[in-house]
């Protein structure tokens, strides 16, 4: 009797150990490279930022940085301005909820308009909200909400919030499944777990894929996303990535109206290792162009188009929270991912955002209570900023 009972337990333990080992393998033999001899250096532009989430560049070389607890900070030529920008709306600050992205209008130089995404409401009734406001240099004025996700939900997880401009001047942004409402990914009467596209005033573009269909939110651009973390347009191509559960973080090329499958298809499992779905493919559902298992927890993303790092020209850079690095993803002629390189792991922090600056440098945000804004420039670069503290990223450096 005792042997009979012990057998399933032993088998379960052996199989579970095997599955843990198996899931740690790269999914498809993608080549990985590590930066052994770095040809860059990392400068600290600003610190004492509380969970910074997004950085945006203004035309006059100033920068705006959001802090998730609900503050918008200005970084100018002297560094971080001590006083946060005033005039922000009330928002839900809890768990993953708070202030997310900031995006200057395409005509910011003349309009001084910025767009903010944030969690609106309370723990029981909340939504992702996008608002626009005018930044007068010290405060926000004329703040106007232009989008509030429907329906409201409870909880403080999976809001999405990353925004980007398409070439036609429309605004796209990602939402999340609220963690508890994953089936909403397949429901078109809700904004949850979608990529949404609106005009700059919040109205619906006439050429959105579901305009005019009964029972469908016309703002929806694509659906079946778990928790969109970044959007990067490149001409006619829109790249997006999203968090999977345990494994299955996805990099996608977004096709208007397409279904990306969550939660019907996924390369990840639940945090408990249970199968959220038995399927990785399903008719009518688009496959990712790449997926990360185990999860790297992708955050911000940028496409590098500058000659300051000629060797990085044309690569996608993906900030990684769990991996505490930035993935450089080379793109082939078709825009599909090739070799990947793990960068900036020497910083030793969760990286929340990565952006290409107008100066050709890469800018990073570390996701910590005392987070930093970092600038990556070529080593011994003649244009490196003087008098800035640097992170020694050489092997053995501190």
């Amino acid at each position, binding site marked *: 009797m005792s042997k009979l009972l012990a057998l399933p337990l032993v088998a379960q333990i052996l199989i579970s150990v095997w599955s843990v080992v198996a899931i740690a393998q790269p999914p498809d033999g993608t080549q990985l490279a590590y930066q052994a001899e770095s040809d860059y250096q990392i400068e600290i532009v600003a610190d004492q930022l509380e969970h910074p989430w997004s950085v945006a560049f203004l035309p006059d070389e100033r920068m705006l940085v959001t802090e998730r607890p609900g503050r918008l900070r200005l970084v100018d030529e002297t560094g971080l301005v001590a006083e946060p920008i005033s005039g922000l709306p009330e928002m839900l600050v809890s768990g993953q909820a708070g202030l997310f992205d900031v995006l200057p209008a395409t005509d910011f130089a003349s309009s001084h308009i910025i767009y903010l995404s944030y969690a609106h409401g309370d723990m029981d009734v909340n939504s992702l909200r996008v608002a626009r406001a005018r930044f007068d240099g010290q405060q926000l004025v004329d703040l106007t909400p232009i989008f509030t996700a429907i329906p409201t939900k409870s909880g403080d997880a999976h809001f999405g919030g990353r925004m980007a401009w398409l070439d036609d001047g429309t605004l796209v942004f990602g939402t999340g499944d609220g963690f508890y409402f994953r089936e909403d990914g397949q429901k078109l009467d809700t904004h949850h777990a979608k990529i949404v596209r609106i005009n700059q005033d919040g109205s619906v573009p006439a050429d959105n894929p579901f305009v005019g269909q009964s029972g469908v939110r016309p703002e929806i651009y694509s659906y079946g996303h778990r928790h969109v973390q970044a959007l990067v347009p490149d001409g006619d191509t829109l790249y997006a990535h999203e968090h999977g559960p345990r494994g299955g973080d996805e990099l996608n090329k977004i096709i208007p109206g397409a279904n990306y499958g969550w939660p019907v298809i996924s390369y990840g499992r639940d945090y*408990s290792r249970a199968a959220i779905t038995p399927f990785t493919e399903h008719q009518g559902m688009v496959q990712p162009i790449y997926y990360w298992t185990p999860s790297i927890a992708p955050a911000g993303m940028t496409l590098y188009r500058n000659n300051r790092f000629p060797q990085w020209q044309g690569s996608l850079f993906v900030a990684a929270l769990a991996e505490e690095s930035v993935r450089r993803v080379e793109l082939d002629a078709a825009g599909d991912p090739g070799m990947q390189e793990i960068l900036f792991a020497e910083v030793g922090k969760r990286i929340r955002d990565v952006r290409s600056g107008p100066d050709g440098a890469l800018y990073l945000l570390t996701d910590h209570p005392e987070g930093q804004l970092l600038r990556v420039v070529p080593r011994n670069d003649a244009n490196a900023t003087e008098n800035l503290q640097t992170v020694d990223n050489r092997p053995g450096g501190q």
Partner: protein
Amino acid sequence: MRHSTLPRLILAFIAAVVIATVWGSIVQTQFNLNALAGIGVEISLGVRISTTLSDIFTGFSLTYGGYVILPSLLCAFVAAWFISRSQPEHAILWFAAAGTAGVLLGNPIVNYLSPLALLVGATRDTLCLLLMALGGTLAGIVFVSIARRDALPHRVSSGQHVMN
């Protein structure tokens, strides 16, 4: 406690943990698959069986058994042990009740202590949690049945009981 009863208690506890874990795994798989069926996905019997077996044997059981069931039943059965000292004739009821309560409380406690919003996603449906808790009930009954009378608190004569 006599040394000879310890192996039997350990065996009984392992059996209880395995039964509660496998039961919970089977239940949560059905809820996850039913959620997919609810949005129009066809789930064949074959897919249902293979997914259920996959959850039992490739990961979920180790997570659920290790993080939820094992500590929950350990605490619950220790409590039931002490209660059974005064009512040894109702030991099976106390252990079954303790097992049920252990699973019911263990899930939210682990969720609270972990950085994740929900370790077992299927328990976002309260009915799933309640049905998973029946595994704790079974575990209590199995524990008492295997441990047998002489390994648990029992009366040796009217008005007395023995702690082994």
